């Protein structure tokens, strides 16, 4: 019989011994009869209203707290890419930046509005730079960064993989090639503000991703210089600027950590910043900003989460109130069979 094989694995063996034929009656189990104990929650108005009220009650404080934290963060943002070009060449930024002889130094003065508690993070922010462009993100070789054995990089790095005479470039690829190379020097009241550039990259990257015995080789030796050069006597694991740059930003406008200032800044302090404006964002219309920022427990200055929490919390409270109103005005008894369609139809004829 066709079905015998199919069910041979089944529990047919519970037949009473006196039965000559094995009974094929399915063995009873709560599972096979689909009678497992189960919880059957139903959306009753009580539950729904309680849920909305509790969401509101939880979200509004969170929203307020985040908003408050965000407001407390002090941030100084200074866009310098336009102003750091001499007036006479202001409409030819590209030409200026590509001119190796031109003096790129630029002095900016920033005023502290509110007290800034240390540590103060120094970021550079670039916009319109697609670090997440397909050609760009792929153009790296993590194996090469990790160990000198993998010196000869994979083809992902093209065109920055080998020099014209076939020597491998370390670190290879477009990402490393286009490394940011503006520098900032800070001073307040002629006193130099030290910028700590140690520990700006992730510890995990330093220790496991970038090899301590991998040294830069043949870097930026091509015809076209993309950005910063690296000291070939320092291993990659200590090239923290590189490590920071090599973490690809998620969005076309991004900040990257430049360093930390570990003194407090008082209100109305004037910070003098000496910028070496080397990096070419002019070719793609990107802008460069210098950002000094304190942090809170919520991170940097961003009101969005606070506002979002307040909105959702408020909305839920509003929904809760309207459900209460509707519930009071037009309740429906739960499980009333007169609402069943076949009963409703019959009742419908009455009217």
């Amino acid at each position: 019989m066709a079905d015998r094989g199919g069910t041979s694995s089944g529990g047919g063996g519970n037949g009473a011994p006196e039965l000559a034929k094995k009974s094929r009656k399915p063995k009873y189990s709560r599972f096979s009869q689909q009678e497992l104990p189960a919880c059957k929650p139903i959306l009753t108005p009580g539950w729904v209203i309680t849920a909305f009220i509790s969401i509101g009650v939880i979200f509004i404080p969170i929203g307020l707290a985040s908003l408050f934290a965000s407001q407390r963060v002090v941030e100084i943002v200074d866009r310098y890419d336009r102003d750091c070009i001499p007036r006479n060449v202001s409409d030819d930024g590209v030409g200026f930046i590509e001119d190796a002889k031109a003096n790129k130094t630029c002095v900016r003065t920033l005023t502290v509005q509110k007290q800034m508690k240390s540590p103060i993070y120094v970021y550079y922010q670039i916009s319109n730079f697609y670090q997440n462009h397909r050609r760009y993100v792929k153009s790296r070789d993590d194996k090469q960064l990790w160990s000198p054995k993998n010196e000869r990089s994979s083809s992902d790095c093209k065109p920055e993989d080998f020099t014209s005479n076939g020597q491998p470039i370390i670190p290879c690829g477009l990402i490393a090639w286009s490394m940011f190379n503006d520098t900032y020097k800070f001073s307040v009241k002629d006193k130099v503000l030290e910028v700590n550039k140690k520990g700006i990259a992730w510890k995990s990257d330093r220790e496991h991703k970038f090899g301590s015995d991998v040294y830069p080789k043949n870097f930026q030796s091509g015809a076209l210089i993309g950005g910063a050069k690296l000291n070939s006597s320092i291993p990659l694991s200590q090239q923290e600027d590189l490590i920071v740059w090599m973490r690809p930003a998620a969005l076309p406008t991004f900040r990257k950590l430049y360093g930390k200032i570990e003194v407090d800044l008082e209100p109305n302090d004037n910070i003098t910043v000496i910028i070496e404006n080397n990096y070419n964002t002019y070719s793609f219309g990107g802008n460069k900003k210098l950002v000094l920022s304190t942090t809170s427990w919520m991170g940097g200055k961003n009101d969005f989460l606070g506002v979002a929490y307040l909105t959702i919390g408020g909305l839920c409270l509003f929904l809760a109130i309207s459900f209460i109103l509707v519930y009071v005005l037009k309740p429906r008894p739960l499980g009333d069979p007169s609402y069943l369609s076949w009963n409703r139809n019959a009742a419908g004829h009455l009217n």
Partner: protein
Amino acid sequence: MDSNPPNETESSYPSCSSSRRSISSAQSKLSRPNSLREVTLGDSGSKKFRNGSRGGADSQGFSVSQKEISDEDARLIYINDPARTNEKFEYAGNSIRTAKYSVFTFLPRNLFEQFHRVAYIYFLVIAILNQLPQLAVFGRGASILPLAFVLLVTAVKDAYEDYRRHRSDRIENNRLALVLVNGEFRDKKWKDIEVGEIIKIHANETLPCDMVLLSTSDPTGIAYVQTINLDGESNLKTRYAKQETLSKTPEKEKVNGFIKCEKPNRNIYGFQANMEIDGKRLSLGPSNIILRGCELKNTAWAIGVAVHAGRETKAMLNSSGAPSKRSRLETRMNVEIIILSIFLIALCSIVSVFAAIWLRRHRDDLDTLPFYRRKDFSEAKPKNYKYYGWGWEIFFTFLMSVIVFQIMIPISLYISMELVRVGQAYFMIRDGGMYDEASNSRFQCRALNINEDLGQIKYVFSDKTGTLTENKMEFRCASIWGVDYSGMDGMIFRPKMIVRTDPELLQLAKVGRESQRGKHVYDFFLALASCNTIVPFVVDTPDPSVKLIDYQGESPDEQALAYAAAAYGFMLIERTSGHIIIDFWGEKQRFNVLGLHEFDSDRKRMSVILGCPDKSVKVFVKGADTTMFSVIDRTLNKSVIQTTEGHLHSYSSLGLRTLVVGMRELNNSEFEQWHFAFVDASTALMGRAALLRKVANNIESNLRVLGASAIEDKLQQGVPDAIESLRMADIKVWVLTGDKQETAISIGYSSKLLTSKMTQIVINSNSKESCRKSLDDAIVMAKKLTSGSIVSHNMEGSSGAVITPVGLIIDGTSLVYVLDSELEEQLFKLASMCSVVLCCRVAPLQKAGIVALVKKRTSDMTLAIGDGANDVSMIQCADVGVGISGQEGRQAVMASDFAMGQFRFLVPLLLVHGHWNYQRMGYMILYNFYRNAVFVLILFWYVLFTCFTLTTAINEWSSMLYSIIYTSVPTIVVGILDKDLSKRTLLKHPQLYGAGHRQEAYNSKLFWLTMVDTLWQSVVAFFVPLLAYWNSTIDAPSIGDLWTLAAVILVNLHLAMDVVRWTWITHAAIWGSIVATWICVVCIDAIPMMPGYWAIFHIGGTPVFWWCLLIIVIAALVPHFVVKFIYQYYFPCDIQIAREAEKFGNLRGHGAIEIEMNPILEPHQR
């Protein structure tokens, strides 16, 4: 009847064997004809007339070998000369191979078969595209992961199944059988048996191949076989060796001859061959062949010649799989899949267009752009690298976006659906409520892909006999020579079966032939006892002095009649092909069977020519009244004929199955004439079946009516309730039966199909014109009845009781004019106004025609249920075919999608499992669309921020694992286990089945709502992190991890919100998936070679990450939650109310209960 305790017999049969020896020589003069079976195709009568042995009805589903053997269609087998037999023609050896693969062919063949499915080809194409260097969106490993995963799972499953087949093949092939080699029988492995060899089988052994019988231990050459492995029938069948070969002993003398037989075919009830032995030519029929898989019973040994071996045996040719159908839901789903494909193409086009615009705007900068760098300056002459020109770049962007957004088309859904259906089938098979004690059979799921169709059935077409009724026949009453004997008070116990007897008739039968009346009674019961193909068996009982007689036969009607005859003292105790012995109140009488014309569906009767002990020759005929009265000599005994007709009418209106018995004495010349014709016909090579029919028609004429018998076929348990439930569920039940109109109507009443409230419209027409007219009249009447009732209904304002339901009764003759003509439209119009349709006297093909008529005109789902071979065509025609594995063979089951033991299981099958399956599958499809689209849209939004270059922040492994590990298990578990309502509620309120009719679980409104919800959820999941990390140092892998986790938690919680019943398995699946996702994300980020190394630990250490997750989940789900609540609370569907009632226990107020008890009268019919 097997369950009757054996010791209930009071009479014993001491000496069956004494008379066995006395085979008269007179008989051997007459060349004993074999009962020849005939196979016809097409219109093969209804079961009611199946009082002969296997008629044409059973050959319905098979290819047919009606034609006579011509040379090119023949196989030539030299008896006991396998070398010569096999030298010219390549006949298959006897080793069988059900396994599909060998070790070497497994990989290529299995892959080849797997890639027959569209889903896998899609996966493959995407994976291949991704291997092109220009399009390498994902790494090699990640891109083939989904394909490898499904291939592996399927291959492991196939390999295991095939291993089991290999094992059983090996066991089967190495069984031993006795084969004649060099003059003695030696053991030989089955696989080495060749066509042409002579094989000896002992009792209870299984046959290794199809063979023609040469001789058996029985001196008359009878062998009994059980064909349970072949067609599931457990009764014994008789097979005959030819007279001419009986005496041969192949060990001693060489048997010279050959057999010319038809080519191997699947018809297990047909066989045509000729044997030429010692220069004599004999014809062979299906009763001379025993088939592989049968078991020899009650016969010490049998010797035969192998004619078909191995894969050419009928058993192997018949082992085909279940039919494949596609479910309605899946067909609907494919429409939405096309919509999703359009979405996909739209998304890809948007990306391509934007990419083109971007490239155009930056065409001058591309060479040096730090993140593009079109030119390679390392060489003297800078040239482009990885840039193929504007057009190609756009084209590649398009293809790449197809790769990235591939899961927009949820191909994995097809695989999930298969798994879910397997799970659902498991629960249907294991349902204790659908296990039939009587036949010890479980529910069977033969087709795995239409489970959810069970939830949308609108029309049920049911057979009557064996489906609504038990097909266990009981002799109820008889009309003999115009006298009705139906006082059934006395009861005597008889072999293996209790027959209620009429005391007066019993007395008459005892007295014998003294009186005129007694003579008719004698003839009547002689006819019942002899005019059949029943084989009596003597069964031992624990008490040695008591022997039981067991009647084995192929038709339950015949069995009932033989038992009845026995109860009245006409006990058939021995049957060989040449004679029968009847124990007449202890006195054994021997009758020579001179000829037997088996039942066929054209004649609808059978006849036997008996040589009586007093040297007279009589022909007894038994058959359906329609055909019997045409061959009865109406000039004789007019009054008897009239009263018999009256009795027939009254019997059938009681729901009894009636047969008419007639007889005639033959004088010598008539007999001689018949005999020559018969011998000629039965050895004819061309058109044997037709010739035999002609001979039969000649002899079956000018009969004297003896009387009529009435057999009761009891309703199956629970049928009225089941029909009531189906009607309440707004399922239309049509009964299609071969029975007479009166019988059908009375069964209709007893099964509550027809009620006294109903107005019956009966259509019996004999011509197309009258048919048209009665249809028109009926439509007018039905309209009046239904619309008129609405008017009165509205005026009186009472609820529904005034509607006059209409029942349509139409017979097969009228259907001949209706089907395949323009009247079909009329009939359908009429039928759709009627709440019940009863078609009587319909032929199998008409059954299918009616199903097709409904299928053509509505989009509603049809289900056909039946048990016999005559239902096969209807079962195959309907959207869902259900077979009853009952008394008759297994052909209905073999053709069906689902098989079960009892009609009443239809109720749990449709109302409970069908409902659940539909709800589950509907939800699962929508959820899968949503689940994949959310993820794709998140990817898409990100692409807008990457210069349209198809970068994904989400790790490539995560995006591949998303639909495999992160989110697949819960949907499958919910698809298998979730129950919207309990079994009790569903059975109590059959109206809840309407959800399937109204397509509540899956429709385009729901689809679009889901898509809007999807859009919102993806926007929230994408933009909250984006804005929260705007102008920050966030790197792509970190925010990608956030998006991954947000999406996974979101879709799992979305599912959790829609789960109705939370069992521990559901909990484990949903929370387990979320945990598994975390583990996977952590593991992926722990690999230093990945660009996102350690990202999750960094981002997970910041509070913003957690705040983002929380608000994404809440904000994304609030609209779904609110809409769901408002719908459930203010626009509740029936299911919702029933669920609440289930939870809060009660039906409040007794007014409500009253409403519920009102009859359900087609609420949609207005």
